[in-house]
């Protein structure tokens, strides 16, 4: 779960991180009112994706009228596929300097990595490429967390020794997002040092592990509904599916990310355009298959669906039953190609055949078949 900026800031504030005063506004009038209370503000689009600054999603407003105009422009704007649902009006800071601070999971090291750089702000990725040494790095032991001496070393390595105490304290608070919230990424970029010497989070990004959602139901309840985006993805999330929208017209269901991706590859190779990626996972049951089909059929662009299941834990008979129930419940009329192998595959194929669905044996053939069937009306 990727939190919006103001949500990430609320969470970090609960860990003791200093944040600027700010208010959420859903309308232009609310933004004007917030500015009246806060003074000059930055009006910031709230979307769970980077690059909003360059997309025009952040505007400075000195007066309530400015704020109203800015919010009017930003709310409803599309930023990388996300329709901006609301803005965050945040008191403008007197910036002395900007620092980069963040951690994420380093897959290669199978560990968390903490990063700190004196060169914070918008261009940190460029800094990473051009002068990687200007980013100090630390792999904290996951049971111990970062130790004081490790943080002191990190701070001096980043050339920020004179800010040792406030930065060390800040990093410890940010790090709490791991044990307390199962954070996968937490970033404060920039950490703002104000002209008065305060150390404040200028922006904040926080991603919580979906696998640990059961431990953080409060977050899901408070924020879950607000992160809008692709409507099919939102619906899929409600139904606990792993689903990503794409812009083609062939619906794709597979079990396992690898098989699902290779089905995408095959459909594209056969000349088709996938409408989505939908992994129904290892132990998928009839209900899950039905859910997946329902979400895919919500999309009016979809002209047909290919299902590719190779069963290990997933049993072919259950998949077959799910497909039939789903097709019938949804009165599905579109072409449907099913490739079914693995555990209980004979039983599964039997069930499909009985209900008038011809099961495929080979994924490549199935991909070609669905492309052929969905191209019929187009030519």
């Amino acid at each position, binding site marked *: 779960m990727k939190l919006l900026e103001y949500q990430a800031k609320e969470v970090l504030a609960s860990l003791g991180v200093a944040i600027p005063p700010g208010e959420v506004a859903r309308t232009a009038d609310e933004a004007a009112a917030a500015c009246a209370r806060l003074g000059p503000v930055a009006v910031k689009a709230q979307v769970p*994706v*980077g690059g909003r600054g360059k997309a025009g999603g952040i505007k400075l407003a000195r007066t309530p009228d400015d704020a109203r105009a800015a919010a009017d422009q930003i709310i409803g704007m599309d930023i*990388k596929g996300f329709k901006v649902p609301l803005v965050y009006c945040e008191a403008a800071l007197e910036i002395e300097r900007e620092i*980069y601070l*963040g*951690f*994420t*999971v*380093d*897959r*290669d090291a*199978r*560990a*968390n990595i903490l*990063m700190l750089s004196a060169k914070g702000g918008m261009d*940190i*990725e460029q800094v*990473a*490429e051009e002068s990687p040494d200007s980013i100090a790095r630390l792999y904290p*032991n*996951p*049971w111990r967390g970062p130790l004081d001496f490790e943080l002191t070393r990190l701070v001096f390595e980043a050339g920020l020794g004179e800010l040792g105490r406030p930065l060390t304290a800040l990093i410890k608070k940010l790090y709490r997002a791991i*044990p307390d919230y*199962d954070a*996968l*990424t937490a*970033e404060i*970029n920039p950490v703002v040092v104000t002209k008065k010497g305060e150390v404040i989070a200028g922006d904040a*990004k926080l*991603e919580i592990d979906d*696998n*640990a959602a*059961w431990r953080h139901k409060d977050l899901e309840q408070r924020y879950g509904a607000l992160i809008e985006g692709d409507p099919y993805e939102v619906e899929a999330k409600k139904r606990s599916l792993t689903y*990503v929208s*794409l812009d083609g017209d062939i619906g794709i269901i*597979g079990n396992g*990310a*690898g*098989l699902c*991706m*290779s089905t*995408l*590859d*095959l459909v*594209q*190779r056969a000349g088709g355009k*996938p409408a989505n990626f939908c992994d129904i*996972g*290892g132990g998928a049951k009839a209900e899950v298959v039905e859910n997946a089909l329902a979400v895919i059929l919500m999309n009016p662009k979809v002209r047909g669906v290919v299902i590719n*299941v*190779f*069963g*290990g*834990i997933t049993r072919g008979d259950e998949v077959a039953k799910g497909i039939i129930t789903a097709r019938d419940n949804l009165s599905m009329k579109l072409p449907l190609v099913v490739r079914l*192998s*693995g*555990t209980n595959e004979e039983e599964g194929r039997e069930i499909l055949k009985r209900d008038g669905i011809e099961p495929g044996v*080979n*994924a*490549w053939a199935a991909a070609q078949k669905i492309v052929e069937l969905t191209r019929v009306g187009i030519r």
Partner: protein
Amino acid sequence: MSILIDGSTRVIVQGITGREGSFHTEQMKELGTKVVGGTSPGKGGTTHAGIPVFNTMADAVKATGANASGIFVPAPFAADAIMEAAAAGITLIVCITEGIPIQEMIRVKDFLRGYPQARLLGANCPGLITPGEAKIGIIPQRITRPGSIGLVSRSGTLTYEVASALSAAGMGQSTIVGIGGDPVLGLTFRDVIEMFEKDPATTQVVLIGEIGGSDEEHAAELLARGTRLKAVAFISGRTAPEGKRMGHAGAIISGNRGTAKSKEEAFRKAGVPVAETTDDIVGLLR
């Protein structure tokens, strides 16, 4: 011969009384795997499908002399089950469970440093099978066939796909190892290929990778140094769109690695042919 598992491996099923644990225990036994016990706290002293059940792994290992385990417990308990197996002296821990929080796996990986004898496969993996001999996990025996091809894969279902195609073409497998698709996992491509390299019964190796991470690149580096094995690689996800990224931390550390292109190039550079589709693999091995 084979790697990691054979007919003499003594296996405990952790979570044997659960639905999946129960079902797959039967499947493992059917192949001839020596399933010598299972765990289920509170059910110690009973038997399940003829197999003795213990409260703890310590008890199970003490009573049975087991050296391997397969984990089928629900996700909230799986990380703990891995550590329990390692602390009990198990040398091959196969974690089938998917959905373990990544931070828990990071802690588990650190914990395992204290138990260098313990090799972890997974989590979120289909396990491994030495066709005709033994298996831990959920790879269907029916699609496998004894032979000399080592198969190692990050994807569960693609593994079946490929194994099935190989078997149908009469090309048997020495051992099939599903390392799992999670970002933080146990044995890597590289670890498994090193084992195949040392296994005289294995002459060819098929590597099935995925976008993300750089385990495939590391394996390619290893193969580039020279190997007696005839290797073929396949990467799924070439047409997958880039994930919508938030924040810069990920980009700072991974740079350009992790794409299908980067992985395929790494293999080609190492002299390893890359299959366009899974169906092409059989041809490239001939």
